[in-house]
Structures are given as C-alpha cells and as structure tokens.
C-alpha cells in the first residue's frame, strides 16, 4: 500500500472545546449518529483511501483511547440506525467528538476538491457546464454522486429508505456541509449544527 501522505499542521489544536449537553445521559441523539455517518460516507465517496487515513488520523489526533482499532471505528459508524449492520448501540459524547474532529481534518484535506465540486454542482444546476466547456468537472461530480449512491445502497438498510433522487440531494447537501466543515472553526460549526438546540 502506498504511504499515506498528509500535511497536518504541526501546531494542530488538539484540544478543541466541544461542549456536551448536560442532562441527556443516553448518548447522542439518533439524528446526530445519522449525520456523522453520512458525512463519513461522503468523505469515502470522495476518496476511497479515506478509511485508512481515518485510522491514521486517530493516532495523530490522540484519539486512541476512544477509537482503539479498526473494529471500534466500524462499530461507531454502525450506531447509525439506518445501517444494515445497526446493532442498537449508542454513540457516547466523546466518541461523537472524535468523529467530528476526524471529519473536519479530512474535510480540510479535501478543501480544494470540495470547492470544485460545489462550484460544479452550482454550474450544473444553472446549466452552464456546456457553455463554459467544463464537461470534465461534471464527469468528476457524477463520479462522486455514483460512488456515494453505491456506497449508500451497499451499507444502508435495504430496501433503501431514500429514492435515488433523495440520495442525490443528500450527497449534494453533504458536499456543502463538508465544505463548511473544512473551515478554521469547522469543528465548532459542525458540532453546534449537529446539536442544534440541545446545547446552549
């Protein structure tokens, strides 16, 4: 396997303060588990090597206490109730925070691609691709959409709860969501949007 090259800034802020809601002791709400898994799935659709990089990031970000190995990462992702292998396990707050950090670091790596794909999906929606002669960008976007759909269909419960159209809308929404995750305050923004209303 080729060596994974990542340029993670050395002075990466290891400790970001993500506030945890006080009262619910039951772990993350269902919607949070679904959203986090969808974001990870979109990252995978952008880069098939992403799972390896995720595991590598676990060490880099000192998250080994939360995610000790590959299986535990798989287990965390399967707390998504729509998963085929859903085990009715819950996601603890520290585990959710770890996933948020991994998502945002990966999104930063993918920032350039995300910019291109979001711009392209805008151009597609405005029918400007052919005028601008950017057909190859459209192909790239379609490649992502296809890959996301096949990943979604193979991992989630069958028959799919979403129609093809809805899967496409979801994958496009995830692109812009990931784009905003890739910002400086990505972790905080993502965390607050996930727990909208739960935390002060």
């Amino acid at each position, binding site marked *: 396997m080729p060596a994974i090259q990542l340029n993670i800034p050395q002075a990466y802020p290891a400790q970001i303060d993500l506030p945890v809601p006080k009262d619910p002791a039951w772990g993350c709400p269902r919607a949070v588990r679904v959203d986090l898994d969808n974001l990870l799935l979109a990252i995978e659709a952008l880069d098939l090597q992403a799972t390896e990089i995720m595991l590598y990031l676990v060490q880099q970000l000192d998250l080994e206490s939360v995610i000790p190995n590959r299986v535990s990462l798989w287990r965390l992702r399967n707390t998504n109730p729509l998963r085929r292998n859903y085990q009715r396990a819950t996601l603890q707050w520290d585990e959710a925070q770890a996933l948020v950090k991994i998502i945002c670091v990966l999104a930063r790596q993918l920032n350039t691609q995300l910019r291109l794909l979001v*711009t392209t999906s805008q151009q597609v*929606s405005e029918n400007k691709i052919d005028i601008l002669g950017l057909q190859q960008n459209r192909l790239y976007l379609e490649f992502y959409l296809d890959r996301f759909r096949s990943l979604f269909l193979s991992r989630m419960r069958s028959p799919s709860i979403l129609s093809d159209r809805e899967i496409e809308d979801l994958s496009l929404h995830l692109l*812009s969501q990931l784009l905003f995750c890739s910002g400086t305050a990505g972790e905080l923004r993502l965390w607050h949007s996930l727990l909208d209303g739960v935390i002060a």
Partner: protein
Amino acid sequence: MTVQRTYSLPNCTLLVEGISLGESNMLSLLTNFECRFHPSQECIAGGRNLLDALVKSVGSYVQSIQRGDVLPASTNAVRLEPEGLYVHRLHVQPTEEDSPNPQPLEIQLSTVQLFDLAEGIDQLCSDRQTLPDLTLALEPAGNVKKSQVKARIVPAVMGITGFAIAATAIFFVPVPPPKPDLKPQAQVSKPLPAEPKPKPKPTPLPAVITDKELIASLQEGLYKKIDRAWKATPKFKEDLLYRVAVNTEGEIVGYKLTNSSAKVDEDNLPLKKLRVMRTDPATGGSPDTPQPTAEFLVTFTPKGKLTVEPVGKVAPESDKPVTKSSSVPTPSADLAETTLQLQDALKKKIDKAWKATPKFKEDLVYRVSVDAAGDIVSYKLANISEKVDEDRLPLKRLAIPSNSPAPQSTTDFFVTFSPSGKLDVETGKELAATLEKKLTQKIDRAWKAAPKFKEDLVYRVSINAAGEIVNYELTNSSVKVDEERLPLKKLRVEVPGQIKSSSAATPQFAADYTVTFSPNGKLSVKPGQ
C-alpha cells in the same frame, strides 16, 4: 501603534485596521475594516458595529446551511438570504456611524464565495492577537427563542384550561331522565333472549364479467391506462406478472404480484397510482355489493414492454395441490378481489405482530383459516420435523377462537415464517407453485452422489405444506435402485407415531409430485398425477 491584519482567501480578502494598546502586538481597538470580494471587487467597509453585524449574520446563516434548512439571517445592517440552492444574497445597509457616505450594497454570493467570507471571519474570530473580544456566532438562523416557545405554550394552556372549565360546567347540567318506552314489552316473565351478537357478514364475491366485447374494450383501456402512467425506467431484472382486477368502468380495483420471488418497488410501477378505492359512488362498489370485475394478467418486462391479457387465456396453474377444505363457494375465489384483500390484511397483521427474532432453522408453514372479517379462526402447523415455540410467533395472540361450532365461511391461507425473518402469506395455488420450486431446490442440493443407474428413475413424492417429504415411491419398479445414493431417503421426515394418529384424524395438506432422476444428472420435478 497602528496594526493591520489581512485574512486572504481565494474569493475574498478581509482587511482589519486598528490600534494596539501598550507594547503588545495585539490589535485591540478596531478603526475600520474592509471586506473585498475577488472577481467582482465589491467591497464592504465600515467600523466595529458593521463588523459585529457581519460576523453575527454570516455565522448564523452558515449554521443554518449546516443544519440543512437555509433561513434568512439578519442582524442590524446586514442581511443574508438564500436565492436558490447555491446562490446567497448579502444585503448591507451601513449607517452614518459605519462610513461617511453610506450606500446600500447588495452582493450575490455563490456557496464557495460565502464559504470564503465565513472562513475569513472565522479566522479573524479565532485569532487571539486580533480583537480577542470578537466571538464566533454559532446560533443558527431561525432558531426558536425560549421566549417564543413560552409565547406558544401560553395559548395552549389557556385552551386546555378553558376546556376543563367548560367540562366542569356541563357536569352540573342535569341529565334528562330516560323517557319510558312507548310500547312496553309484553309482561311475560320469560327471560329476554340474549341478543345475538351481530356476526360479521361474509363479503359476497364479486360477479365476474363475462361479456366478451366488454372484456376486449376493458383490456384495451387498461393497456392504454397503464402504458400512459408507466414512466419510470424499469429497474427489475425479470418479468413482473400482475393479476389486475378491473371493474366495468375500467378502473383498477385490485392487483397482486404473482411471481412472488421478485422484490418490487411498486412506487415505480403505475398500478399503485391507478388503483381506485372500492367505494366509488359512480360505479356503486362497496364492500357489501362488490362490483362485477374482470381479471387481467399484466406483464411488465425489464425492457419496458407491457402486455395485458385476460386471465382465462393463460394456462392455469396446476389445480391438484390446492386444498379442498376451503369452504369458499366458488372455485374462482382465489382470484377474487376479496381474497386478495384478506390475504393483504392477514399479511400486514401478522407482520406487525411478529416481533421476536426467529430461532427456528427451517421455514415454518402454517395453515391459517380466516373468516370474512379477516380474523384468524384457526391455525395449524404443517411442519412435522420442527418443534416450535409458538409463544414467539404472533399467531397465538392473533387467533380469535370462534365460539360458534357452525362452520363459518372461511378462507385458508398458508403462512410461511422464514428463519431470515421473511413472511409469506399465500393461497393454496401460490403455495403449490412455491413448493414445487422449494422441492426442486431441496432435492437438487441434497443429491450429491454421481448417478450409477442406466435409465430415468421416476418417483412419486408426497410432501406436506411445509415442503417436507412425507412419503415417496418408485414408479418404474423394474429397476433396482440403491436408494442410499439418492437424496430422498435422507430428506424424508419420519412422522412420529403420536402425531401420525392425530394427523390421520385431520388430514394434512399434501401434494404429490413426480420427481425424475436422469442418469445424466438432470432432475425434474412436476406436479404429480
């Protein structure tokens, strides 16, 4: 000392100017800022108030995008609102305080430009050396404030209280005394006969349309109707065969998939949309007087071809294995709409009630009798080999033992519980078709020894409803066969003596099949004579 900071991004540059107090390099007092968008060179400039408004509205707007429902966000002079999926409109209305010659500004931003604007602001907010009192805005736009929640709860509470007051008042209104009956009952001391419970009336079967001309025109109409409505590209791999019941007006009143092996997304097929509920005033159909119907076989092929044929034309499935104990009057009952509905309702009912994880290894097949109201009157396990914990199956709970010994009009269905959690409810005919397939698979899988015989071996094999082989017999007796090398002996289920006697009293569902083993390894299973 004057300090300048720039946050530069592909689509936007944020320039902040201010004064640092003391020796440190910290920018602690803002004099002015400038935010310039790149291809367009549009520029927002102003003082601290405008910057605060910008930070707040952009922050909460981005949060609402993250959350998935984009809502306009506005703070004082700055307003952001969505314009389509990828375009965002930024209005800035600076006051005199912000700039010497305030001009309203309207900028259209794409999502990526908005990201750069937000990123510039986020970098500024996270920069500890610049304006440390500036914080991120993480409250999404359109969030319901707590005070608003209160405002919504108050009327509701008032409503409930009002209802309670009204109810209390009505409580004190005297109840009018019951008027004595004008025609008193005859003064006989005979106890009143217990009023008979209204029994659910069995739904009469719909009449079958026999007029050939009408059938032909219905066929044509149905074809046109389905063809026009079928727009989705086929996603299935094999032909889908539907039985469709049509009334005299050409409306689809019921349909059912006949090749049950396929899993179909019926939303992609037009039948669901075209079906008309039965109580249509125009045609006068209602559960009591069903409308006359004609049956058609509709085939959807993966290539997009559609065929519609009247049911009579198609070679009927083998009638032999169908149970005769069903007391539904006409033989066409299987095809009738009522049966379809009973079948549907039964499946839904059992499916809903079946919650325990299956612990059995083989398919369990039950014969379930259902009365006209859809209640389960009786059920019986067809399997012999399996021991079943019936508490884990829903039938026990759902069954309503009928009190009247008189035979009700019942319909029999075969309910199959699979270890995988699949549930099938089939009529006798459908079961026979499934059983044939199951038997073929079963024998095929178990037949491993290479054939050593020279000519075809023809066996008559009896199976029960669970697909278990209860008996078999070689028909071409001239040959001598080493039955150890054939799978039948292994697959045969020994009927335990105890059950044997009881099963003699209540004859089991059984079907005969002709199984032919060929010397070249070929296997054929046909419904038996």
